[in-house]
């Protein structure tokens, strides 16, 4: 039997290119205070706390322990951490709530991408014997995928520019976005390539950020929030690490996760997709069965702000927020990890009328 679990609160730090004054704890504390206030809970009311971050950004082993201090973990709390985007911390918290011994969970994540050379840092997740020693950057890997998409006849550079243009235009209404502007796709196409066939506008910004979610199960969720965003399905799938073993023009893991999460079981009002590069949104749309959907990434998505370790949970939060405030009834949230959409998590959220 599955225990019903819902998002009952979401908070985020306004995304910035570089947070040069505050450290990670100082970035997080207002976000955690905000999400607790929205849920009407104190740390003493929270049954399980789970965070997502990476030591590779902070250059320090067990760096999450210091941010845990910002949560006030005394008297001792039940706590865990994943070296992944916060979306996976939410997944762990969802599993924990299935055990039934606790009814609430705080999930948070943070990432300061700005202090180090992000493209070098991200290359450390690749195969250590024959890929990482070449130091390939994320833009180049996404460009290989983009060219395959073009040469398979599935998309054009103009399609990429449409995604880039629409995302930043959507971000104009998102006060937490880092990049927001109104430039027509045709004007973006006139710009030179950064790594052919990708232009700078097809790529995400480098972002510092943090966000947090509170989950609650069953009647506890109904008591705390008038319209909880119920997680009706959640699934995570992984493809092989070697790029050559995958058809990079499709996302089989997203397709499988979407089927298991039940994306296609009913109409979707809103989707927030963790597609850091413009061509990847097209691949994800196809794999989710949302190829022509009108309301994808209304927040602007990762092209408007891409804090590493945070951008995935933000997608879940953005969908949940729209359900909680009544502007959507059923939404899809997606998070990715690894090169060229290697890992994908899909969640379906619904409101009750």
């Amino acid at each position, binding site marked *: 039997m599955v225990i019903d679990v819902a998002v009952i609160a979401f908070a985020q730090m306004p995304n910035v290119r570089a947070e040069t004054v505050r450290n990670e704890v100082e970035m997080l504390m207002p976000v955690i205070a905000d999400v607790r206030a929205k849920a009407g809970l104190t740390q003493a009311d929270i049954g399980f706390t789970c965070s997502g971050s990476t030591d590779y950004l902070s250059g320090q082993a067990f760096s999450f322990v210091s941010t845990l201090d910002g949560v006030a973990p005394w008297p001792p709390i039940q706590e865990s951490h994943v070296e992944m985007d916060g979306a996976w911390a939410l997944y762990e918290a969802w599993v924990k709530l299935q055990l039934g011994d606790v009814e609430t969970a705080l999930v948070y994540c943070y990432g300061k991408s700005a202090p180090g050379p992000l493209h070098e840092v991200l290359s450390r997740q690749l195969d250590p014997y024959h890929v990482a020693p070449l130091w390939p950057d994320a833009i*180049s890997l996404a460009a290989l995928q983009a060219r395959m998409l073009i040469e398979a006849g599935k998309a054009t550079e103009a399609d990429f520019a449409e995604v880039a243009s629409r995302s930043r235009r959507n971000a104009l209404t998102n006060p937490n976005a880092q990049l927001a502007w109104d430039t027509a796709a045709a004007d973006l196409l006139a710009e030179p390539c950064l790594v052919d066939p990708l232009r700078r506008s097809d790529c995400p910004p480098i972002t510092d950020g943090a966000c947090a979610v509170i989950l609650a199960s069953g009647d506890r969720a109904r008591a705390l929030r008038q319209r909880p965003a119920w997680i009706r399905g959640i699934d995570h799938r992984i493809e092989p690490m070697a790029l*050559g073993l995958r058809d990079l023009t499709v996302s089989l893991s997203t397709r499988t996760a979407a089927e298991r999460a039940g994306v296609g079981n009913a109409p979707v009002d809103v989707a927030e997709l963790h597609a850091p590069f413009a061509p990847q949104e097209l691949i994800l749309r196809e794999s989710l069965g949302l190829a022509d959907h009108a309301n994808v990434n209304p927040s602007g998505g990762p092209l408007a702000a891409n804090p590493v370790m945070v951008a995935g949970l933000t997608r879940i939060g953005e969908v949940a927020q729209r359900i909680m405030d009544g502007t959507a009834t059923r939404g899809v949230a997606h998070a990715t990890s690894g090169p060229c959409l290697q890992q994908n998590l899909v969640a379906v959220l619904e409101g009750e009328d």
Partner: protein
Amino acid sequence: MSDDPGVLSAPLIIEYPFSRTTGPVIGAFLTGLREKVLLGIKGSDGRVIVPPTEYDSFTGEDLTELVEVGPGGEVLTWAWVRGPMAKHPLSHPFAWALVKPDGADVGFLQVVDAGSPEAMATGMRVRPRWGDEREGSIHDLACWEPDV
């Protein structure tokens, strides 16, 4: 480091002070590179995978049948780097590419030193450029060049 004798300080050096053994499959691949030989391995479905993996990514089966591939190859996709980053293998503009060696069924991430993007095309033939001093690492295969 502080010059104040009353302040305790210590250097912080971030390092990874471990060595790894590469085993019978990846080790064979790297040793092959030292001898200018490219090795792949037969997957569960008979496809030849390069670089070889110890197990099949789709079935989990152990793989053991190493196969010599190359030396020539074909470009499956490519990206042109106009401004190489500090740690990139070449300091002048180059292409990243998935290169499928002859006799293999999949490509792997490599560098093609082609001079200009006009010299690059999907499906083009490339040949390996070996390093002069080879020591059993991926760097023994310095890069690939157009085979015209």
